[in-house]
């Protein structure tokens, strides 16, 4: 390889020297002719080198100088490299432009932040939603421009698992939904969405449910009152009497639904921390048990097991309503001869309250939907039993309020266990 590199220049130089020697011998000036020819060869190489240099400096790839031999090949190769680079550059630029156009067209606001929360780039929607100015705001910290404390804390705390909705971060009446997605080396992608409409709709829905239930309650009270008096009338025909009794039952069911709806909307409306105090769970369970036994003819056994005297920090009325709902459910779906068991215990993770029954149970695929409002496993049966369809929704809400979770284990035909789990921080030593 190295040898073959030498062959071509050696041959051409030798040929030139041979010609020079020949002419020199003919003319008699051998030394002069040979030096002249060698100088000419050197000059030619230097000239071509100079032209290539000038061409490279000019930055014009298309105007390449023509030269033969090795120099021609060199020029050709350089030109090819250059063209390839240009092509890639053009493609990259196009790609970046397309990316920019597409991100700018995203209806959600997108802001790219560096690890110090300084703005690297943002799209048009973000500029509109957050009143950012391009390019002046690039390099400024985002929390200097979007200053609502909820957002600043969200950004600073670094817990980006859940989004945050902030009112008045941009335009005063606007509700903005912020979600930070970390990427790369500590960089952050901030997504902003206008959720004013959803927030208003949600508020309207809550107001509507609360108002409607409230308005329904007074007429219902009147109707149930008259039905009660009428059904006690002894001069009535038996057929009419039965109908009146049925009417009364339905009116009572409706009252229960309205009451549960009101309870739910109150739970939703109560912002911040409820009025919390230590609740003696054992005493609460005993009260619930005697209430239940007093209200209905007991066809089942109700057992109670209190393993810990620890008290639970929470809102007494809400906890009462949640546990009562669990117990009512158990009573409703347990056929006669069954057993209902309530248990309150604790371990290293937290406190647990469970209500198990030997009732009809729920199919596994229906468990996730149980806490939905008005969801019924078997519509015919549960209506007959007089449930409102809101009980477990109330339980779920109360538990959310108390940072608790609801676990449901059930086997069809064998019974179900509903377990409320409360964090350790909510447990208090016995009084």
């Amino acid at each position, binding site marked *: 390889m190295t040898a073959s590199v030498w062959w071509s220049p050696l041959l051409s130089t030798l040929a030139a020297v041979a010609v020079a020697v020949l002419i020199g011998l003919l003319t008699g000036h051998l030394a002069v002719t040979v030096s002249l020819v060698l100088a000419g060869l050197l000059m030619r190489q230097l000239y071509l080198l100079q032209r290539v240099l000038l061409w490279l400096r000019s930055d014009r790839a298309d105007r390449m100088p023509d030269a033969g031999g090795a120099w021609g090949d060199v020029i050709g190769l350089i030109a090819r490299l250059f063209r390839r680079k240009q092509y890639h550059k053009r493609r990259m630029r196009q790609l970046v432009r397309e990316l920019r156009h597409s991100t700018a067209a995203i209806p959600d606001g997108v802001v790219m932040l560096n690890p110090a929360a300084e703005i690297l780039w943002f799209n048009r929607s973000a500029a509109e939603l957050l009143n950012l100015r391009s390019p002046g705001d690039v390099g*400024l910290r985002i929390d200097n421009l979007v200053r609502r404390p909820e957002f600043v804390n969200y950004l600073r705390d670094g817990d980006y698992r859940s989004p945050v909705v902030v009112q008045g971060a941009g335009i005063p009446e606007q509700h903005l939904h912020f979600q930070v997605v970390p990427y790369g080396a500590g960089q952050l992608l901030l997504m902003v969405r206008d959720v004013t409409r959803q927030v208003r709709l949600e508020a309207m829905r809550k107001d509507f449910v609360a108002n409607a239930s409230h308005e329904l309650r007074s007429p219902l009270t009147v109707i149930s009152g008259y039905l009660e008096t009428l059904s006690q009338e002894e001069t009535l025909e038996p057929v009419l009497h039965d109908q009146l009794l049925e009417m009364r039952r339905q009116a009572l069911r409706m009252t229960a639904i309205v009451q549960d709806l009101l309870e739910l909307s109150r739970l939703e409306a109560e912002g911040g921390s409820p009025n919390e105090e230590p609740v003696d769970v054992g005493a609460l369970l005993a009260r619930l048990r005697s209430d239940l036994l007093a209200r209905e003819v007991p066809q089942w056994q109700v057992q109670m097991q209190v393993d810990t005297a620890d008290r639970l920090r929470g809102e007494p009325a809400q906890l009462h309503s949640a546990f009562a709902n669990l117990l009512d459910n158990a009573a409703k779906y347990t056929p006669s001869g069954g057993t209902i068991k309530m248990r309150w215990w604790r371990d290293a993770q937290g406190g647990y309250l469970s209500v198990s029954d030997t009732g009809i149970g729920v199919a596994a695929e229906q468990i996730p939907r149980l806490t939905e409002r008005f969801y019924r496993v078997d519509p015919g049966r549960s209506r007959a039993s007089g449930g409102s369809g809101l009980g477990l929704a109330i339980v779920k809400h109360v538990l959310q309020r108390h940072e608790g979770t609801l676990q449901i284990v059930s086997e069809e035909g064998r019974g179900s266990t509903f377990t409320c789990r409360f964090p350790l921080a909510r447990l208090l030593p016995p009084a």
Partner: protein
Amino acid sequence: MEAADLSHHTSRRFNEDLERVRTKVLAMGGFVEQQLSHALTALVEGDSALGKSVASQDYKVNGMEVSIDEECSRILATRAPAAGDLRMVVATIKTITDLERIGDECERIGNIASRLANTERPEDHYREVKHLGRTVQLMVHNTLDACARLDSTLALKTARNDRIVDEEYESIQRQCITFMMEDPRAIRRALEVMWVVRSLERIGDHAKNICEYIIYMVHGKDIRHTSLESVEQEINSRAARE
């Protein structure tokens, strides 16, 4: 822009100190902004609990003022800043005083709001107060924006809005007097409303002061007690020269 301004320091820690102070000031501003908006909402919607919560949160503003003040003293003592940096520290110390006063006015509005929530609301639902409130809120917001961007043009524009606030204040005052003369039973409420608008007008003044500090910080020119027109001419001619 200011990233370039601040990057000439050989000590990176110094830059970080200055940046951190600014971020803290703006966080304090953001909190005050929220207090103002909550106080006004409490008043207009008759939300007594919200008004009380505004009043009880004011201690946070005070705490922030103290902490930023300490940090500024520390920078002055240990870094001995000069020129633009010195102006920034001085302007910051003044700015937080005004922000703290705005916080106090919000506390007052919150208290009045929780008191008024128990009485009957007027038929116009505080339309004028609401409007004045919006103007003042926008003014505070723009002031803080100008502070974040070191934008002296916006600061000047915002400072000029103070005149509108003053005019609206006058007109609401006259309106309140009319109400009181028409119906003596409305005197109590009208007096309370007077306090609210007075507070809002004061907040406008404080925002204007902060705008002046921003102009001082950016241009190194003290424009207190001078007419805004002459300041504007000065700034424009300076911009033309640059």
